[in-house]
C-alpha cells in the first residue's frame, strides 16, 4: 500500500542547527497493516509521517501510495488517499466552524469544494447517526462550534471525520498525547475499531508503550532517523510489554 524507498530529509542543511531527521529509510507497508512507530524524541517519527502525508518533501528517495508515485505531490492532493489525525486536537478540526461544517468538509475530502450548498437534512441525519456511534451524546450538538468541545471529543470526531469520505490510509500522530487517560482510551479504541471496520492501512506514532503493545499488527522502533527494530504481526504478538520498555533502556 505504501512504499518508502531510501528516503532522506535534512532540515536547515549547512547551518549550525542542521538536523538529519530521516537518514535513508526504506519501508513497505502492506494494505490493511496497522503499523505502530515508537522512538525517542528527535528520532524522526513525525518527519516520516509528514513525508508520507506530503507536508514535508523528501530530499532524496521516493514514496509510493497505492501504486502511485506521490513523491512530488502536495499534501492537499495526497488527501485523496490519506486522512490524518494530529497530535494537537486544534490542528485536525476548525474550532470556529460548527461540528456540522467540519463534517461537511470531511465528507468531500476527495472531491472539489463547489459552489453549491451541501448541507441538507439528509446530510445532517447521516452526521447525527455517525456521531451517535461514539456514545458521547454529541449528536445533538452538531450546530455548536467545534471549539466548545474538549480535546478528547475533538480527537474522536476527527477520527470519525476521516472515514466520512473514501479513505485508504490513516495517519495518527500521537493522537492521545494531549488527552487525559480516559479520553485517550476512548480515542484509541475508536481508532482501532474504525481501522478494522473500514479496512484501513494505518500508521500510529505513540509514546505510550501500553498502546504500542495493545494495538497494531506491526511495530517499528526508530532512532537517529533510521528503523532500528521491526517486528511483524507474529513477532509483535510474542512480544511482552516489558520487552518494549527494554528498547528504551
Amino acid at each position, binding site marked *: 500500500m505504501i512504499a518508502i524507498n531510501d528516503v532522506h530529509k535534512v532540515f536547515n542543511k549547512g547551518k549550525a542547527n542542521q538536523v538529519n531527521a530521516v537518514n535513508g529509510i526504506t519501508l513497505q507497508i502492506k494494505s490493511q497493516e496497522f503499523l505502530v512507530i515508537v522512538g525517542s524524541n528527535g528520532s524522526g517519527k513525525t518527519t516520516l509521517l509528514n513525508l508520507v502525508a506530503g507536508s514535508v518533501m523528501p530530499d532524496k528517495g521516493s514514496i509510493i501510495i497505492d501504486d502511485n508515485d506521490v513523491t512530488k505531490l502536495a499534501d492537499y492532493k495526497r488527501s485523496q488517499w490519506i486522512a490524518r489525525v494530529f497530535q494537537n486536537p486544534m490542528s485536525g478540526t476548525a474550532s470556529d466552524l460548527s461540528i456540522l461544517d467540519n463534517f461537511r468538509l470531511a465528507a468531500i475530502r476527495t472531491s472539489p469544494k463547489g459552489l453549491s*450548498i451541501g448541507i441538507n437534512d439528509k446530510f445532517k441525519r447521516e452526521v447525527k447517526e455517525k456521531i451517535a456511534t461514539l456514545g458521547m451524546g454529541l449528536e445533538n450538538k452538531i450546530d455548536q462550534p467545534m471549539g466548545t468541545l474538549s480535546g478528547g471529543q475533538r480527537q474522536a470526531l476527527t477520527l470519525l471525520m476521516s472515514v466520512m469520505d473514501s479513505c485508504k490510509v490513516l495517519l495518527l500522530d500521537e493522537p492521545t498525547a494531549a488527552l487525559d487517560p480516559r479520553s485517550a482510551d476512548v480515542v484509541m479504541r475508536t481508532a482501532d475499531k474504525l481501522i478494522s471496520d473500514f479496512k484501513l492501512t494505518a500508521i500510529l506514532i505513540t509514546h505510550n508503550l501500553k498502546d504500542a503493545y495493545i494495538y497494531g499488527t506491526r511495530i517499528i522502533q526508530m532512532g537517529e532517523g533510521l528503523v532500528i527494530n521491526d517486528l511483524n504481526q507474529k513477532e509483535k504478538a510474542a512480544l511482552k510489554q516489558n520487552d518494549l520498555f527494554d528498547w528504551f533502556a
Partner: protein
Amino acid sequence: MDFYLTALLQGLCFSAIALGIYISMKIFNIPDITTDGSYTLGGAVTAVMLSRHLSPYLILPTVIIAGGLAGALTGLIHTKLKINALLAGILVMTALYSVNLTIMGRSNVPLIGTASLFSLLNIVADPNQNTFILLSVFVAIITLLIGYLLKTDFGIAMRATGNSESMIRALGVNTDRMKITGLALANALTALSGYLIVQFQGFADISMGIGIVIVGLGSVIIAETLINWFRITRIWISLVLVLAGAVIFQLVLAFTLAIGVDANLLKLVTAAFVLLIVSLPRLSFNKAL
C-alpha cells in the same frame, strides 16, 4: 436630519468595504491593507468610464475585475513569495497609487452631468430617498451573494482556511489558491465601495483612499463586538451586523461633526473611536478582588 441621512447613505456605500475587510480579516485571518489602493482603483475606473459615457453595465464588472486583480496580486505575493501579508498589501497599495493616477490622468475627476447608478432609476422624487432605495437594494444583493457563498461547500472551505490551515490541507484544499481567491474577493468588494462612493459624491480623487482601511476595520470591529455580545454564530446575522457596523461608524462620525468638532480632527476622532471600540470588551469595570 439630512445630515444623518447622508451619513447613512455613506455607510451603505462603505458596507462593501466592510464586507471585504470582514472576509480578509475575520474569515481568512489575513491583515490586508491593499484596501486603500483597491478602493481608489474602483473609484478611478468608475469615474473615468462614466466621464467617457461608457455603459454603466460595463462599469460594474470592470470595477469588480480590477479590484479582484489587485487583491489576487497581494495574495500571490503573500503565498507564492512567502512575504508577510501586511508588507504584500503595502507593496500593492503603493504601486496602485501610480496605477490609479495613470488611469485618472490627473488627481481629480469630477463627474458633472454624467449618468450614474443613482440616476438610472427614479423610484421616488426625492433624490436622497431614491439613492437610499437603490443603495439598499445594491447592498442587499451583495450581502445575499456573499452569504450564499459562505454557506456553500467552497465557503465552508474558505472559513476553515483562516481557522485551521493544517486541517483544511489534510482535507484536500489548496490553501494558497484559497487565500488568493479570498483576497481577490475582498478587494473586489472594496473596489465596489469606491464605485459606489464616486457616484454618490460625484467625483473621484487620488487621495480618496487614504486611511480608508480604518473605515472597514472600524465597521468590522463594531460588528465583532456585537457578534461577541450576542453570541452570534449564524453567518447571515454576522453579515448584517457588519453592514450595521458600517452605518453606525458613519453615524458616529456625523455626530462628531454635528457637535462641532473641527473637521480637521476627523481622522484623529476616527482613530480614537476605533480604539475605544476595540478596547471596550477588554476594559473591566469590576475590579478583580
